[in-house]
């Protein structure tokens, strides 16, 4: 039986709505404050939540994402007497199922409820599909599960998809997963890296050209749009697409026909479009750097990928997977992760997201050499320094230095930071030289510092090289 939570401070309205919900054969629970509502939603799986905006202890819209991220990922229907266009837009962007202005009759509220429950039933059927390929994407957090649901939804249709997220969140892997689970999987998945191409090159690369169309066009070439025929065209970093190309691409997107450079006739391409960006395209529209009509076309389905710091519960699983992958590739026994290593990777903020984590694991595996276990000291020094700085910054300085203060001059925060940095740097260099057996070339490669700088640091810390 479907379970419905109603969060609204109007007791009479709650009771009427819950009676109607129960009459339809569903279970209903009422909460009259946001706090009570969140407590129910976090502890009990609900299928749908009716959420009022203005509540005595807060704004319901502020908690919409949190509710969507609970384990049961309920659909949320926003109810408000203070409906505004902005509020509606924010609600829908944050993943609300619908937005109903009050006052509306109770019966009007039942239609979105029934539709949400039907959608949920279909969605659960799709997401429980055991064969869905999500190669290289790791994580079981509620945020990642929500993304997998959207991948399944995108794969089952041919609508345009836009994937947004910070650098390193895995936008391309998600695009590939949509393609591989779609009916187009046997055809090309064509990557267009808009950030790597200049305006003129973007045009010739996308549209293709006839021989002699421009200087250097010595042969006819099909463009990437044509190569994506029957398959998927993935426009990575679409925010970098020049405005002039945006205009011509919009037409291609509408008609699936275009004229290669220097060609007399138009040609067809039945591609499916997935675009990705780390830019705020709405803001770019406002500043005139991105076409609103193109953004509108792209937004049939949006997948917002979380940053790694937004789903830290997945870090350990990601680290275990990639450590095994790196070790296997390098012909090494799979290394274990020590508690201090796990503690460090979970504490770090990973501004470069999963890609930064994977690169840190690459370096840690290299630094550990024959050691069967990765320890904190195997992490790149830049990360360890950040962690050390965070510890110094997080704890009151009197706690950190109270013992030392009695025996020596009290340090300034700057001095403490510098000495902590020096200590970590020295420890890293000692490990590095020990692990490389004093091989300077290898040490330079692992540490990514020049030979001159390495010698300088060895001298500074008085480290003896033994080989």
């Amino acid at each position, binding site marked *: 039986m479907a379970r419905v939570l109603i969060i609204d401070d109007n007791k009479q309205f709650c009771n009427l709505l819950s009676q109607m919900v129960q009459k339809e054969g569903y279970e209903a629970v009422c909460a009259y404050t946001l706090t009570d509502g969140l407590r129910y939603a976090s502890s009990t799986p609900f299928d749908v939540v009716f959420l009022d905006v203005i509540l005595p202890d807060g704004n319901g819209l502020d908690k919409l994402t949190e509710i969507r991220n609970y384990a049961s990922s309920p659909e949320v229907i926003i109810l408000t007497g203070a409906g505004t266009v902005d509020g509606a837009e924010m609600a829908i962007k944050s993943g609300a199922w619908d937005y109903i202005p009050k006052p509306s009759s109770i019966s009007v509220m039942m239609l979105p409820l029934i539709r949400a429950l039907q959608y949920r039933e279909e969605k659960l059927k799709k997401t429980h599909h055991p064969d869905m390929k999500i190669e290289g994407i790791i994580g079981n957090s509620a945020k990642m599960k929500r993304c997998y649901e959207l991948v399944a939804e995108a794969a089952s249709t041919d609508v345009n998809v836009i994937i947004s997220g910070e650098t390193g969140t895995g936008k*391309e892997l998600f695009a*590939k997963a949509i393609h591989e689970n779609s009916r187009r999987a046997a055809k*090309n*998945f*064509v*990557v267009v*890296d808009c*950030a*790597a*191409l*200049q305006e003129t*090159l973007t045009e010739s*690369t996308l549209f293709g050209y006839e021989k002699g169309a421009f200087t*250097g066009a*010595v*042969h006819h*070439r*099909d463009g990437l749009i044509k*190569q994506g025929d029957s398959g998927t065209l993935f426009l990575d970093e679409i925010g970098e697409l020049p405005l002039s190309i945006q205009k011509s691409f919009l037409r291609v997107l509408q008609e699936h026909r275009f004229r290669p450079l220097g060609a007399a006739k138009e040609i067809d391409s039945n591609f499916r479009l997935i675009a990705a960006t780390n830019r705020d395209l709405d803001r770019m529209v406002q500043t005139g750097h991105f076409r609103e009509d193109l953004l509108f076309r792209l937004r049939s389905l949006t997948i917002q990928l979380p940053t790694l710091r937004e789903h830290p519960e997945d870090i350990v699983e990601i680290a275990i997977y990639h450590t095994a992958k790196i070790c296997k*590739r*390098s*012909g090494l026994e799979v290394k274990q992760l020590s508690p201090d290593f796990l503690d460090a990777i979970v504490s770090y903020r990973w501004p*470069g997201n999963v*890609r930064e984590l*994977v*690169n840190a694991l*690459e*370096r840690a*595996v*290299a630094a550990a050499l024959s050691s069967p276990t990765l320890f904190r000291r195997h992490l*790149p020094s830049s990360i360890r320094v950040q962690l050390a700085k965070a510890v110094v910054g997080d704890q009151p300085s009197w706690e950190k230095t109270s013992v030392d203060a009695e025996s020596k001059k009290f340090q300034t925060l700057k001095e403490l930071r510098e000495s902590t940095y020096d200590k970590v740097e020295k420890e890293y260099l000692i490990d590095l030289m020990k692990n490389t057996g004093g091989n300077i070339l290898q040490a330079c*490669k*692992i540490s*990514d510092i020049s030979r001159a700088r390495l010698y300088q640091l060895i001298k500074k810390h008085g480290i003896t090289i033994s080989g």
Partner: protein
Amino acid sequence: MSLIFYQPMESGVGKRLRNILESVVPKDHIELYSTMDDLFERFQNPICHGKVTVIFAATRKDFHRILPLKDFLSDMNLVLILPDDSPEMMAEAHTLRPRYITWADSDFRDIEAVLKRLMALSKNCF
């Protein structure tokens, strides 16, 4: 910050390509590999995901020899230089998820422009 360059055989075209690479990246920052074994060994060592990698396949045979490295190459910022643009070759090339594809008969000015951008984008690579 270095770049990986695989060129199975030194040729006039290969030399021209190398000159272009050296105009973008200092010579001692180009890791040059001319055999599949050496390239494979390179991928067994620590590598930055997103590192710029240029593969010059002058012949179909050269191209088919790199396909087993698909899992490694698709993690890189890959630039492919192919011998031809037959549909079969292009379909196989796209499985490597390259950031840019050009052909051996190009003047490589396109490569120069693309590499400048890719190198700037991968500046955080070790």
